[in-house]
């Protein structure tokens, strides 16, 4: 059966929606404002004399616009989202409600400290949980996301080396399986990067790592559990070798959800680790952010932590906002405006309190159980890249597709038609045609069984050798079919421009 075309381009509940700029009714607004008092303007010669070019829409039109856009998105609220490395777990609405309490939402970063003691208490509460969970001496709360936390950790490390007369240490060791942020962060911190190979079982080649350790090495950055979904069994040994060589051990905490509440990373010999609150602690990803990347620090690195920091003077909270003073005497400075991602902290604390230490331990257990269940059941048709058990994510390579003409990308796109978000594809780079699946503790057995059934079906279909064309055509049922990324990159169109004969703003495209 071929699908009938419609005059509108709509397909039932899938409604086409133009750009706001194409829905413009000049002069229309969805916001009514009180009348401004009559005053003599004091704008000097800076008053704008030209139109801006923003479109005018009514409130119902705006609500409909964004509602329709939202309906073109897949989300954790609507279904299974096993995107490896991303920890797409349930985002409790209680968190949202708490973040919107006027006492948290409607406070200004520069109110007198005496009027925001509850906000400082909230930050300190979040910090206390993170320190207890990790066993670390201190936590820098200002990093805005994971990569920013990595930067914070490396800045502490560089500052510590400088303070100890070790400025000649100019290189960071990073496993080749690492997230791209690790080498990018090292470069942003002024370091050279050397890659460490993985061994056949998907872990850091410890011998190779030790061979790279020498007096120029400032630190080693290791994701643990690593990007292959495996725990670095030798991490204590690695930490010792790194320390013996005078370097620091940065652990990338992107995969912390697998071990939270089970061990304290301080006991592994870690000097610094960022924690993605938007992964492990359930704050929403929001289509790309905001996150928060508090970075726990060992006693050796703690003195160099960035400002601001919450301090306690007797029983009263205070904020140290300036490097070079008080608790921030040796601080390397400020890396973000204001007091960090406060609204994200509120959501994370709401989650921590709700879960409790017993709930967090159960969550990491269920996350690992779910991933191993996928690994076991999917191995019936797919080819696991490594032997289990895995931690919270399972990675498969594309050997099962060999000779079928079907690729990892095709499988991913076919999964869209099955109604699930595809796993992470082609990462980690050390696994050929990788499919990296992270189910998280959010998923019920029934959801996993449904996903397994879909994926086994697709694997069998691919292997049948008769369905290559079907795979290449997928997805068929999504709001858009495969998009031409080559066209987008060759002649980039990054904004709307008024039609050449239009009456919109023309100053834009000079």
């Amino acid at each position, binding site marked *: 059966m071929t699908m009938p075309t419609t005059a509108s381009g709509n397909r039932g509940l899938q409604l086409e929606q133009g750009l706001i700029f194409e829905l413009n009714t000049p002069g229309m607004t969805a916001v009514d404002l009180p009348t401004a008092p009559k005053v003599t303007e004091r704008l000097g010669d800076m008053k*704008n004399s030209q139109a801006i070019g923003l479109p005018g829409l009514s409130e119902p039109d705006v609500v409909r616009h964004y509602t329709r856009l939202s309906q073109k998105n897949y989300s954790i609220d609507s279904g299974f989202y096993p995107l490896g490395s991303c920890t797409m777990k349930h985002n409790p609405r209680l968190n949202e409600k708490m973040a919107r309490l006027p006492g948290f939402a409607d406070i200004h970063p520069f109110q007198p400290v005496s009027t925001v003691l509850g906000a400082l208490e909230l930050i300190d509460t979040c910090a206390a949980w993170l320190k207890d969970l990790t066993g670390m001496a201190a936590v820098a709360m200002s990093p805005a996301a994971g990569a920013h936390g990595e930067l914070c950790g490396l800045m502490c490390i560089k500052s510590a080396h400088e303070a100890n007369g070790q400025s000649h240490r100019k290189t960071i060791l990073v496993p080749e399986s690492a997230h791209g942020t690790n080498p990018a962060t090292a470069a942003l911190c002024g370091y050279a990067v050397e890659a460490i190979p993985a061994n056949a079982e998907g872990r850091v080649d410890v011998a190779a790592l030790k061979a790279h350790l020498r007096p120029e090495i400032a630190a080693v950055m290791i994701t643990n559990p690593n990007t292959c979904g495996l725990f670095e069994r030798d991490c204590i040994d690695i930490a010792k070798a790194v320390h013996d060589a005078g370097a620091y051990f940065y652990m990338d905490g992107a995969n912390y959800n697998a071990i939270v509440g089970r061990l304290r990373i301080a006991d592994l010999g870690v000097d610094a680790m960022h924690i993605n609150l938007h992964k492990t602690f359930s704050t929403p990803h929001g289509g790309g952010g905001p996150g928060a990347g508090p970075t726990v620090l060992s006693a050796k690195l703690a003195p160099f932590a960035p400002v601001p920091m919450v301090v306690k003077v007797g029983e009263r909270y205070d904020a140290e906002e300036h490097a070079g003073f008080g608790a921030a005497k040796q601080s390397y400075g400020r890396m973000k405006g204001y007091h960090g991602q406060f609204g994200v902290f509120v959501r994370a604390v709401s989650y921590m309190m709700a879960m409790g230490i017993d709930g967090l331990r159960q969550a990491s257990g269920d996350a690992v159980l779910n991933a191993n269940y996928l690994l076991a059941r999917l191995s019936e048709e797919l080819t696991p890249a490594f032997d289990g058990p895995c931690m919270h994510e399972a990675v498969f390579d594309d050997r099962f597709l060999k000779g079928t003409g079907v690729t990892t990308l095709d499988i991913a796109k076919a999964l869209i038609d099955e109604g699930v978000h595809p796993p992470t594809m082609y990462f980690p780079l050390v696994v050929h045609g990788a499919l990296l699946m992270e189910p998280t503790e959010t998923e019920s057995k029934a959801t996993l069984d449904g996903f397994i059934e879909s994926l086994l079906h697709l694997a069998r279909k691919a292997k049948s050798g008769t369905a290559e064309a079907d795979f290449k055509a997928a997805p068929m049922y999504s709001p858009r079919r495969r998009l031409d990324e080559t066209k987008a990159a060759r002649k980039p169109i990054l904004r709307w421009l008024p039609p050449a004969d239009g009456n919109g703003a023309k100053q834009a495209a000079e």
Partner: protein
Amino acid sequence: MRYLPLSDTNRREMLGAIGAASVDELFRDLPKAALASAKFALPNTASEIEVERALSTMAAKNLNCGAAPSFLGAGNYRHHTPASMDYLIQRGEFLTAYTPYQPEISQGTLQAIFEFQTQVALITGMEIANASMYDGATACAEAVAMACRVTKRSQALVSGNVHPHYRDTTATTMKFLDVGVECLAPDPYGVEDLIGRITDEYACVVVQTPGFFGHLKDYTALADACHKAGALLVVCVTEPVSLGLITPPGRIGADIVVGEGQSLAGPMSFGGPGVGLFATREKFLRQMPGRLCGETTDEDGRRGWVLTLSTREQHIRREKATSNICTNSGLIALAFSTHMTLLGEAGFTRLAQLNHAMAVTLADKVETLPGVKLLPNAFFNEFTLALPNAAAGVVEELAKRKILGGVPVSRFYPTYPELANLLLLTATETNTAADIYALVAALKEVLS
């Protein structure tokens, strides 16, 4: 635990399928010593009502700005948030989606980013904008790093009228890259000479409009001087509502415009999360940090959107990327964009006019107080006052009267005694005539 759907029966069945005796067995790669030493002092699970109670108690210890006349700014502004904006960003399809890596099922987020990029480009007067940075301060640091890449120079000059957090964040970030950042002394009177200092060593000059102390200045001549010296002009905007009324930075010759979108994107939330705005000229596209969304077509020829030019980014370029940024401020960018769409040209310009009118009303009143001097001649919705005594003490006294009466400059510059008497005051559409009356009366009392 209400967030965890597995039953014990499920767990047993799943362990059976795996062939493991217990969940603990799955953790066998974890070092035994570390497992044994793991002791935690944290409480166990709590019901929803208990969490609400604990957090509401904490929140109640704060004086929220809605409960007191408030005149706070300094980079963070209290504006009215339309109810439909907060509703729309809480739709689960936006709130609980990841970065749009699978474009076929992320067209909503992608189209919203494309619209956001266009709106930011329009209000800043620039050609292109990215999908957002963390906040204004980090966007400023990224702008300086980008200017260094473009000009192949490693020195930056930062005006004393730039927000101190932007200055500090930029200086901190750049010192690790061995880029010299020369931050000029704070300039509350708006008298610094930037043009005279420009040399061909500088990658860029960084200014802010409206300035940190409130000044509105025309930087056209500065832009020309920068370009003559082969440097870029970076313009920071901490209050984007101003762009509804004043000449956009793009039209005075800015090469990069960075800013903080919070003031149009919802609650202040103690300063975070915000949303970093980043706009520039098309010729610098390849040196730009952050995600970009571009237009294309799908297999059926229908218009759609994808993330594009990703080869600049960390997941492809690794140590050669233009930035290490991955997660940005997607949802806050959506809030910004939704609010901007609700406002439209008419609402945006009217909102800006109302802000300016409230600030002028406030200025007219406070500058007549004895011993008080208004510093900027031209300003938008914020200005600096020189008081007869230390501003920090005045603000504390006002707080005792349940008035949040501005931000003392000494909060940022504690080691500059000559700035101790300076107070930053802001008025927005959220202030009423009664608020202004209350502040003026209280100030009169405190200052006498």
